[in-house]
């Protein structure tokens, strides 16, 4: 492998330790792995990238554990990226998603990585995209991303996953909640978990009506609403079938899939752009930043003028 950086070569050879290391470096925002990411991104593209999102306590990790078992019984190699929130006060975190996946701990066909959101607000972590690049290059059959527990507007998963599974429960709110903009709009599959709860049937019907009257998430695809009990595996096979059906639909509608991929990549690049701009402003030499801030405070300058001066100096 001539000219391939050794660390990228190790990842391509399936080295979990090096993959873990590179994800840590990406999390630190260290740009010295850009050559590796360049190589790994070009080597990737074969994995299915499945997003699981939903409110805290809906059962995402338990559902994921169940999904992993079924996919492993089909001999598929699985990578998991499980994201939990960072403390807004200390910056620390307790990443507890592995507890639910403990029965897979010794399985060498699985890579599980916990990530703290580290201030990212869209349900993911800033380095989630780089982590997917690294895992995709290792040719896992499925990369499953579990977002932080989300509310209504954390939809960054759309920029990373091929397919978005939204977990709900019977306690997810009434009919008005279901027609609001945001997370419900992006769900390719809706799962109503804890289906033994009273009110599940009503929730399923409400969501089915909502789905029937909205724009399709992908051409030719009607978002199914499926009940599950992740603690005992009931309903999981129907979700697996729906995932397969979604990928068949993707394959059958080339033009629509291309459009969706373009929208997704646009979102991913925009996320990177936001991070880069923030970084660029943060590393500005203190005097120029301070001068601009003071100019805005004293109303010599309007905030947008300061932005132009700081970020696009050549044009102002």
């Amino acid at each position, binding site marked *: 492998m001539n000219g391939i950086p050794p660390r990228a070569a190790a990842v391509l050879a399936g080295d979990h330790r090096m993959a873990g290391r590179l994800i840590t470096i990406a999390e630190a925002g260290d740009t010295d792995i850009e050559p590796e990411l360049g190589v790994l991104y070009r080597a990737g593209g074969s994995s299915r990238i499945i997003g699981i999102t939903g409110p805290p306590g809906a059962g995402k990790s338990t559902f994921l554990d169940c999904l992993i078992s079924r996919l492993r019984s089909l001999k598929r190699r699985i990578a998991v990226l499980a994201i939990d929130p960072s403390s807004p006060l200390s910056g620390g975190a*307790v990443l*507890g998603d592995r507890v639910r996946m403990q029965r897979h*701990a010794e399985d060498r066909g699985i890579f599980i990585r916990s990530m703290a959101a*580290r201030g990212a607000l869209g349900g993911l972590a800033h380095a989630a995209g780089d982590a997917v690049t690294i895992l995709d290059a290792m040719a896992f059959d499925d990369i499953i991303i579990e977002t932080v527990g989300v509310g209504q507007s954390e939809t960054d998963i759309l920029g990373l996953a091929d397919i978005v599974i939204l977990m709900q429960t019977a306690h997810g709110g009434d009919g008005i909640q279901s027609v609001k903009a945001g997370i419900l709009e992006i769900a390719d599959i809706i799962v109503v978990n804890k289906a033994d709860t009273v009110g599940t049937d009503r929730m399923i019907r409400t969501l089915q009506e909502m789905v029937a009257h909205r724009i399709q998430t992908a051409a030719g695809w009607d978002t199914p609403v499926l009940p599950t009990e992740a603690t005992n595996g009931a309903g999981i096979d129907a979700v697996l079938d729906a995932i397969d059906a979604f990928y068949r639909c993707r394959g059958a509608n080339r033009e629509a899939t291309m459009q969706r991929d373009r929208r997704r990549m646009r979102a991913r690049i925009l996320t990177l752009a936001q991070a880069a701009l923030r970084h660029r402003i943060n590393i500005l030499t203190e005097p120029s930043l301070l001068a601009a801030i003071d100019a805005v405070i004293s109303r010599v300058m309007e905030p947008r003028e300061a932005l132009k001066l700081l970020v696009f100096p050549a044009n102002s």
Partner: protein
Amino acid sequence: MTVRCLLGMLGTDVHSKGIRTLAQVLRDAGIEVIYLGEHNSVAGMVRAVIDEDADIIGLSFSSAAYLEYIRQFVTAMRENGVGSVPLMIGGLIHPDDHLPLQEMGISGIFGPGSRMDAIIDFVRNKGGSLQ
């Protein structure tokens, strides 16, 4: 750089109060805790150290079998190329066992009466040492 600390318990030990308290204290000190909970196997925990690229590991014991578990764990760490990740031990650790633990390379032993700030300092210093 943010320190990532893996915390867990091996075997049949169910006394998780201490390690859960520690997880929260470390979180409040700005540490990212990868929490594995109880009932882990040696092999499973070593895989977690690898995939998670942990900077430091903390194991808690309230059962008598800890010397044997720690010996197996240290061996498995070394065999899997992660022998250099610092390891700390907490819980009901008898003073008589400090010497054999130190001989196995365990530098952080936090038995009954340990101070939280001493554990936080240890995690910050040792956890930052590999980076």
